[in-house]
């Protein structure tokens, strides 16, 4: 399958492909700089492969240029990575956003972090750096020292303007009324309906990708765990898998199953928490209290099983750090009790007219928009996008377990809530399967030496597809690109809220369950 695919692409663009290498399930094609847009357009629109990431690397020391990578997820567990070279003397590349809207933020990120400008980008404003960041400073370039504290300069940020009779703006954030992460929302409204929403993020930007380049591999796992607090296990697994792929080690089967159990526990508590949040926002406190209680029970179970309510400190390169086999009976018992309670609660929640009134047709994301922006995870599946990393690019023990991927079409808050509820049952079933099939043996393989190389690591976090691209050189991380699912999904909220009323914004926001920290890093 991959060979055929590569042949098709090579035939189509014979003179434009300079070089091609294959490692594991990743095919790297170096192409002529000005051909990237054409080839990406072909992959995305003709072959129907979603663009899952764009990132740059600073290879000036080795190859005398920057490189930009376009990552496509293909059928049959294959990834195609299109590479172009960008010289320092001409720090520009052609934008892809006109063809693939999902490219929007990636290109602006590259502009801010590497100083490579996307020519023709429809919105070339800064993304990560604020107006007080001096021009000409690019943190991910190798000559930028992580400890630098640049002075603040004077500058201004311009928001999109919506004008007309009776139109006014509501600025919200970065410090919000509730206990949530910081971000700025600017609504343009006429009466109650929202005409436009502009989001401005990156308040929690901590320089994580740069930090990865200065820590050792063992320590980097803990950093990955802390990129998006409640998706710790998914991030850690994705990072570890990338490194394991480079090192060419196969982790013990028992570790694979334990990882699966951890990932599903994480999905359970996140989905329950999201359902609780939606119940709170539709003024259904009974449901919120019970869903929060269920979430708390999963988190307490996490603590008993792993010593951390967020499943932290469990994953390591080469496997897992603690065995959980002796907790099997406790987990199964708790699961049975929780499943019964969860089922009762979902019946009450979905049969409540007051809830239905608030969630049905609210915050609709059409399949077309979801596809264009590459909306991932439960939000994408609620808009008819049938993708799940666990099934499409199996990792851990998922290829040996059976599960369904719930997909709905309506794309409203109702659909997103139902997808989550269905996924909770699937997670419970997966944990049961994994526990009953739990293989015996070691839980960790020692990582002795690691040669230079690069690889993709991926996992399906509760929020969706999480992607790591790690490049290792001399036992150090040369570059680690992290793509949290929220980075894809944030822009969809600007479309989801249109024509909805301001009081429905919190429900829409909650139903999309977006991470600020994972997005900003």
């Amino acid at each position, binding site marked *: 399958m991959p060979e055929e695919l590569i042949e098709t692409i090579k035939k189509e663009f014979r003179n434009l492909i300079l070089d091609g290498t294959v490692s594991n399930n990743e095919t790297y094609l170096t192409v002529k700089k000005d051909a990237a847009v054409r080839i990406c357009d072909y992959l995305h629109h003709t072959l129907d492969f979603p663009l899952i990431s764009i990132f740059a690397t600073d290879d000036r020391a080795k190859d005398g240029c920057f490189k930009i990578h376009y990552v496509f997820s293909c059928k049959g567990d294959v990834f195609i990575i299109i590479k172009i070279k960008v010289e320092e003397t001409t720090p520009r590349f052609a934008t892809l956003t006109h063809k693939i809207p999902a490219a929007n933020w990636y290109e602006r990120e590259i502009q801010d972090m590497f100083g490579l400008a996307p020519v023709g980008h429809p919105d070339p404003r800064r993304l990560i750096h604020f107006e007080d960041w001096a021009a000409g400073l690019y943190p991910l370039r190798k000559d930028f020292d992580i400890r630098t504290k640049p002075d603040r300069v004077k500058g201004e940020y311009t928001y999109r303007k919506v004008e007309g009779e009776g139109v006014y703006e509501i600025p919200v954030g970065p410090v919000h009324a*509730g206990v949530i992460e910081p971000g700025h929302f600017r609504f343009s409204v006429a009466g109650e309906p929202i005409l436009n929403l502009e989001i401005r993020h990156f308040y*929690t930007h*901590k320089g994580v990708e740069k*930090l990865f380049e200065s820590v050792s591999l063992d320590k980097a796992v803990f950093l990955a765990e802390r990129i998006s607090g409640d998706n710790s296990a998914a991030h850690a697994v994705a990072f570890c898998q990338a490194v394991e792929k480079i090192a060419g080690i196969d982790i013990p089967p028992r570790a694979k199953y334990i990882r699966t159990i951890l990932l599903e526990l994480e999905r359970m508590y996140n989905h329950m928490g999201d359902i609780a949040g939606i119940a709170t926002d539709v003024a259904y406190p009974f449901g919120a*209290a019970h869903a929060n209680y269920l979430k708390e029970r999963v988190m307490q179970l996490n603590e008993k099983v792993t010593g951390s309510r967020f499943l932290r400190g469990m994953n390591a390169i080469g496997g897992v750090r603690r065995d959980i086999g002796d907790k099997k009976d406790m987990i199964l018992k708790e699961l049975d009790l929780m499943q019964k309670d969860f089922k009762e609660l979902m019946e009450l929640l979905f049969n409540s007219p007051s809830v239905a009134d608030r969630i049905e047709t609210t915050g609709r994301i059409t399949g077309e928009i979801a596809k264009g922006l590459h909306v991932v995870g439960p939000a994408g599946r609620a808009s008819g996008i049938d993708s799940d990393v666990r099934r499409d690019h199996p990792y851990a023990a998922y290829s040996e377990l059976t599960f369904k991927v719930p997909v709905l079409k309506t794309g409203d808050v109702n659909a997103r809530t139902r997808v989550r509820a269905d996924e909770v049952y699937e997670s419970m079933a997966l944990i049961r399967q994994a526990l009953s099939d739990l293989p015996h043996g070691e839980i960790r393989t020692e990582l002795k030496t690691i040669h230079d190389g690069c690889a993709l690591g991926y996992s399906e976090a509760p929020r969706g597809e999480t992607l790591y691209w790690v490049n290792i050189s001399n036992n150090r991380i040369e570059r680690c690109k992290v793509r949290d699912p929220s980075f894809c999904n944030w822009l969809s909220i600007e479309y989801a809220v249109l024509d909805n009323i301001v009081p429905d914004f919190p429900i829409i926001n909650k139903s999309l369950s977006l991470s600020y920290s994972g997005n900003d890093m």
Partner: protein
Amino acid sequence: MTVDDEMEIMGQRLNRKIRALFGRSLSIREVDAGSCNACEVEVNALANPVYDMERFGIHIVASPRHADMLLVTGPVTRNMELALLKTANATPEPKLVVAMGSCACNGGIFGETYASGGGVDRFMPVDVYIPGCPPRPQAVIFGLMVAVDKLEQKIKKSEVKV
């Protein structure tokens, strides 16, 4: 006296103190200064039926102007610094600043980078540190008890000055 008895007395003292100092309530404004969201999840957990901090009269309020205490999480990012200082300025004196989580205490795993400040006490005086990554909800409740104790001292001090 058993450990249980001791704890019982501690809980009663907390209740009494909150009543005497704040007229039955302690208002907290939570500020995320760049945390990973885990601390926020735990603060939200304090409101769930299991920990139910409202039973001690502890509330999360929507505005810093209504708050007695700022509960700060995260290492204070460059982009949040100004918002945090503005929030702190809007909180009436005598106020308490509590650094929750290892990042807020001294930067945690993020340490100091071009974008991360390396802890709340680099930007404003901190009254109480609650270590943990993130601290479990019980640890946060304990931290709030320590903070209430500190506020009592603060109020006494400011009375002497007058």
